[in-house]
């Protein structure tokens, strides 16, 4: 098991991604690599900037996007007060960070694997692709609301087969859902694996189709979290037996037949 102690580390760089159209929604955060002895794609960290005064109490959870022995990279979408302040951090600022937390995505190098990302849900898949020994078995499908350049899609589609669809007009959603269904059916037919990360409605859709076609599938949940360590019971979801389980420790990744969304 990897060390999960809480550390105070320095920000190396915060840079907006896809400046051109929407300059300040997506950010790549580079931090000093914490003293970890490993991590797995799908795991996440809790981050709380030092010197946040007390009016934002909680840390915020972010998927580990990528890491080498020197740098930890996160991919952060600015959606509210916490992410606004996190993306305004400057090099040299410090954060409390604990992790790697939670379980990880199934990794079966020889199985055809479909990666379904809804928007920012692409974050953990960057690490997944980097960790995968047979990227030729991977296909990445991204549903995106903003211009493609806002996401780390290019970095991935150079290594794996990539598909993307813009969710820009009201009608787009139905085409995306239809395409997703088709993809899931295809991977069910080749006895593949489906991994998904994105907003809850997106995860529900994936679950429905996975059930329909009987394919093995995992979804990563983004429930609100206070502690990240399984203690507060604020982040729970229902498992297959209708029991409340912590998303932070029993997840964030769940097999679609073992979770109620």
């Amino acid at each position: 098991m990897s060390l999960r102690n809480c550390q105070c580390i320095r920000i190396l760089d915060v840079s907006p991604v896809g400046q051109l159209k929407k300059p300040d929604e997506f950010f790549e955060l580079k931090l000093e690599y914490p003293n970890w002895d490993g991590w797995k794609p799908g795991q996440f960290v809790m981050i709380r900037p030092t010197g946040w005064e007390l009016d934002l109490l909680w840390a915020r959870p972010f998927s580990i996007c990528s890491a080498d022995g020197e740098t930890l990279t996160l991919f952060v979408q600015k959606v509210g007060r916490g992410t606004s302040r996190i993306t305004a951090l400057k090099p040299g600022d410090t954060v409390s960070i604990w992790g790697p937390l939670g379980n990880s995505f199934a990794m079966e190098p020889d199985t055809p694997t479909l990666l379904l990302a809804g928007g920012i849900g692409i974050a953990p898949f960057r690490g997944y692709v980097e960790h995968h020994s047979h990227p030729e078995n991977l296909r990445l499908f991204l549903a995106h609301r903003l211009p493609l350049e806002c996401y780390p899609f290019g970095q991935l589609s150079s290594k794996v087969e990539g598909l993307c669809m813009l969710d820009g007009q009201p009608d787009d959603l139905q085409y995306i859902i239809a395409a997703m269904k088709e993809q899931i059916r295809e991977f069910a037919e080749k006895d593949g694996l489906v991994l998904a990360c994105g907003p809850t409605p997106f995860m529900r859709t994936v679950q429905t189709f996975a059930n329909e076609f009987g394919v093995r599938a995992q979804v990563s949940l983004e429930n609100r979290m206070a502690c990240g360590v399984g203690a507060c019971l604020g982040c729970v979801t229902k498992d297959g037996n209708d029991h409340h389980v912590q998303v932070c420790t029993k997840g964030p990744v769940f097999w679609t037949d073992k979770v109620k969304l």
Partner: protein
Amino acid sequence: MDMKVSFGGLNLKNPVMTASGTFGFGLEFAPYGDLTKLGGIVAKGLSLKPREGNPMPRIAETPCGMLNAIGIQNPGVEDFITKALPALPWKDVAVIANLYACDAAEFGELAGVLAGEEGVAALEVNVSCPNVKEGGIAFGQDPKQICKVTEAVKKNAGNKPVIVKLSPNVTDIVTCARAAAEGGADSLSLINTLSGMAVDIRNRQPRIANVIAGLSGPAIKPVALRCVHQVVQAVDIPVVGIGGIASAEDALEFILVGAHAIQVGTANFLRPDFSFDLVDELEKLLEDIGAESLDEFRGSLKLPL
């Protein structure tokens, strides 16, 4: 400085305890610090039968605070005894069980189950849970019920010290404290959460499925300090201060008004190593402000004549 503290049948190596519901069964925090460094660990609320707790969403952030309506989700007291307790270093840190029930008889039964457990240092009675709809509020806010529950627990607790945890959602906390003392409580802990609520103007829904939830964190510290002060002035049994402690200075404020120990709740979410660090910081700050000893400092608040 000697940080040991003894009160109401408990001997703690320092006054820093963790508050029920915010530190799991303790084990969740083992990767972040040495559990035996703490003065005490109050485990999450236990009921006789397992409970699934409230529907989601259960938590919301508020200015300098948070709301929770977990609804005492727990695996039941038997599960605690067979799984969590044996895994805890209870020989080296006081492990305190937190009891939740909805009537006096059930409280008595729970106490009976725990009375024989060597690993349990004391029982904390949650008479206040403001989260759970089924009668939780009224019953912790009624001095007569508080007394009755305390008696029931005390009767079955064997030689385990009994701490009664009070709710601040009352007109007069002193009457509640007296009722617990009368029922035989060895000490009191206060405060539990304030009854609060949050809504989302965009989807027009409550932010917590249970609608009403418990407010905790630094926001409530002034209320907690006031409650502890009032109870210490009026009641003879020792008091454990809880509510919004997020620094060594906060902890000393409670000790200054007369608390024997303190519990850290919401601040455990600031950083999982918060309570561990607090143990060291508390001692250092006491020295910095020139206190002679913990005993000398405790309750030394100078009140106007």
